[in-house]
């Protein structure tokens, strides 16, 4: 704040008073609008998320509640407890959304950094606030773009740290979870096909391309193009569907 000129400082104060946000947010908005107060308000209110102020002391307390006694991380037990407090099941997909906000590196673990900055970005510093946020987090899955980001995030999050590919069982579990939200009629056949024919880990490319496939190609495969540069696994899946008469082949 001391680096700003007096005019700017005043504007920051005004902004904070009116919107009730933190200095950081005020600075962001004013910079974006070239230090015009009206423009800054426009900028701020057009943001989808209203960043509320969080108290870092509360966050520390929260973290310590869930942290593992031996390691500076929230591990399985901690996550369990967190879910309990939030009144959600551990395998509820909203936890994936939470992990996404936290930019968690791997499932069932949160580092201090991840947990705290995650909660900050959500604008919650207590369990009550967190619980209240859950429905809106769930709603984010309905947004196309967010869903894609979450879906692609899930790959890195669900796989083992040292591996490049995602183990098949985990992948199938994730798909069933994700496609329960965004309905894809062929998801069961896909999982069946993989178990019968493929039996190997899933590459990142296949993972991300599958979403495109589910979104753009209709279940009767009428606009599937064999020259469409789909990963070979998806081509084989299409063959599998034709062979087993699940979809009629078109000439």
């Amino acid at each position: 704040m001391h680096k700003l000129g007096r005019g700017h400082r005043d504007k920051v104060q005004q902004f904070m008073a009116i919107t009730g946000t933190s200095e950081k947010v005020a600075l962001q908005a004013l910079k974006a609008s070239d230090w015009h107060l009206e423009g800054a308000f426009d900028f701020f209110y057009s943001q989808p998320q209203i960043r509320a102020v969080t108290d870092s002391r509360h966050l520390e307390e929260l973290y310590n509640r869930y942290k593992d006694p031996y390691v500076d991380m929230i591990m399985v037990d901690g996550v369990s407890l967190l879910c309990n407090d939030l009144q959600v099941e551990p395998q509820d997909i909203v936890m994936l959304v939470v992990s996404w906000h936290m930019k968690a590196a791997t499932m069932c673990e949160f580092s201090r950094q991840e947990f705290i900055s995650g909660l900050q970005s959500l604008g919650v510093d207590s369990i009550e606030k967190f619980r209240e946020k859950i429905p809106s987090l769930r709603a984010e899955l309905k947004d196309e773009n967010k869903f894609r980001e979450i879906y692609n995030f899930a790959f890195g999050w669900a796989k083992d740290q040292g591996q490049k590919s995602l183990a098949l069982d985990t992948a199938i579990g994730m798909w069933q979870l994700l496609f329960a939200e965004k309905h894809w009629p062929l998801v069961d056949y896909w999982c069946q096909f993989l178990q019968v024919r493929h039996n190997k880990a899933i590459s990142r490319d296949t993972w991300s391309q599958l979403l495109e496939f589910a979104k753009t190609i209709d279940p009767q495969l009428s606009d599937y193009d064999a020259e469409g540069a789909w990963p070979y696994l998806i081509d084989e899946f299409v063959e599998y569907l034709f062979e087993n008469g699940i979809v009629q082949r078109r000439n």
Partner: protein
Amino acid sequence: MSAQKKRNFKIEAFKHRVEVDPKYAEKTWKILEHAIHEIYNHNASGLSFEELYRNAYNMVLHKYGEKLYSGLVTTMTWHLKEIAKSIEAAQGGLFLEELNRKWGDHNKALQMIRDILMYMDRTFVPSNHKTPVHELGLNLWRDNIIHSHKIQTRLLDTLLDLIHRERKGEVINRGLMRNITKMLMDLGSSVYQEDFERPFLEVSASFYSGESQQFIECCDCGDYLKKAERRLNEEMERVSHYLDAKSEAKITSVVEKEMIANHMQRLVHMENSGLVNMLVDDKYEDLSRMYNLFRRVPEGFSTIRDVMTSHLRETGKQLVIDPDRLRDPVDFVQRLLDMKDKHDKIINVAFNNDKTFQNALNSSFEYFINLNNRSPEFISLYVDDKLRKGLKGVTEEDVEVVLDKVMMLFRYLQEKDVFEKYYKQHLAKRLLSGKTVSDDAERSMIVKLKTECGYQFTSKLEGMFTDMRTSQDTMQGFYASQYSEMGDGPTLAVQVLTTGSWPTQPSTPCNLPAEILSVCEKFRAYYLGTHTGRRLTWQTNMGTADIKATFGKGQKHELNVSTYQMCVLMLFNSEDCLSYKEIEQATEIPASDLKRCLQSLACVKGKNVLRKEPMSKDIAEDDAFYFNDKFTSKFIKVKIGTVVAQKESEPEKHETRQRVEEDRKPQIEAAIVRIMKSRRVLDHNSIVTEVTTQLQSRFLPNPVVIKKRIESLIEREFLERDKADRKLYRYLA
């Protein structure tokens, strides 16, 4: 002289009119009319040309041109009508003759009349837009004779009838015909065309349509074509003799259409005599005739080509998938070569070396050779056979000829990398067993392969030759250094093979007999002394040995055996009887190899230096082996070795194929990376096309494999998909 008054001379215009006698015109015309009559009555000799000319001249001069002209028309017309009657009256064959004669007369008369009336022709006619005299004469002839209703049809019918008869074999008066047709031409090309040519073509068409139908029912293909050719020649001759030259193209196309084009399919597919039979029976003359005739009609060549192509493909396919043929690879390839030779000759002799046919032949061969995925192996075996013994005593040029022909087949292969693998294996065996007929022939083959496929293809093969030479030098050096110490030990000949150049073989365990082992160690020490940093591994599965053996009655034989066989036999120096298990334990040779080795020592007639109990053909775990004292052979030197190149067994074939597939993956990846590095961004289909093009000289990559390689490269972060267009790939530097 007195000066005279000068007078101006004036020549005054001729003022007074020439009085023309009103009857002058009529009188003059009468003279001329009379002259015309006389001319037509062949009585011209009494006339004075000069007088008549002057009369005509005067008439025109005095503005009586019109009278003269119309008088001419009337008179001539009258004469022509008389002539028409006389022609009509002519009977039968005399009709044409009469017509011809009268035509000649008319022409002569016309010429004379024209000469007389030349002044009118030159002045009155053009300025009054009248038809010139000569032309007028022709037109009048046309209108009054040719188009007279009694003559017109009769003329046409007579002409057509004569032609028809000539076609049927009668002799007709060609000179007369020529005159008549020339007459028609002179009357104007439209007269010729309308009054003769068009009906002539129509009639000819139906004639040939009928005749061709008749022929095709009763003739075979070759005969039919002969007849067609004859008719065609006939018509051309006819035209040259008595028709207008322009009719040639028209009548020939009629014959071509009726006799050839309409029956093309039937001819070509005729049973027992069609194109396929001609090809099979090498009927060069018939094929040549077909080629020359069919070239005249649209789709003619393509019809022949298509039938030939499908015949070749079918025959070739039968050849390559016939299980009997597959038993003998050398025979298999020989048959392919024979088939190629045969058809090359046909194209050369009968089809005029036509490039399009050559291409059809090539594409057919390429098609069916690749139907059998063992073709590369078999071609390599064929070369192996030739280089091993087939080319013994053959001259250098003939060797080149054989190898060049093999190269032609090689070019058709899509999977050249498979061929390379087998060629390497077979070459290795040839080199190591020393069984090559001619080093020059080997080298010549390598050179041909290099020319065809580039340096990389043959660099390893050449490495193999180098190793052989180097080994010889090494051996010399070895023996020179060991001279004093060798004594009675076995003589060793070592070939040192550089691992990268020779086909990879897993090294198998094998316990060498003590005597052999010691001399081997001496060699190892010598070699490593001069080449530090290298590692030597004995390839016991590839060696040979010559052993002297003494049998029951003291007969000595020299046995040429493989290293494995030597190890087994040496065991019998200390034992008379050994069980399979004991042999296995002592030698540590892998079971499948050991069984094969024992089979060749004990179960082959004439080579059974060991005796087996029980005497079955297969080796069982509890068999017992005895040294066969009773072994006899009429040869002193007996060859029992089994290191000859053979057609692979199923599992071996499978293994080789797998290795080939594995080798292809990095090649495909290298191609993808090369392409992406230079293009930076490219869509999927273009990558597949480019990779296929780049690799086609070695093999045909499978698009699915290419796709998998792309995905593997994405995994390893060499490439990424474009964010906006998922069909596009980007190179990641």
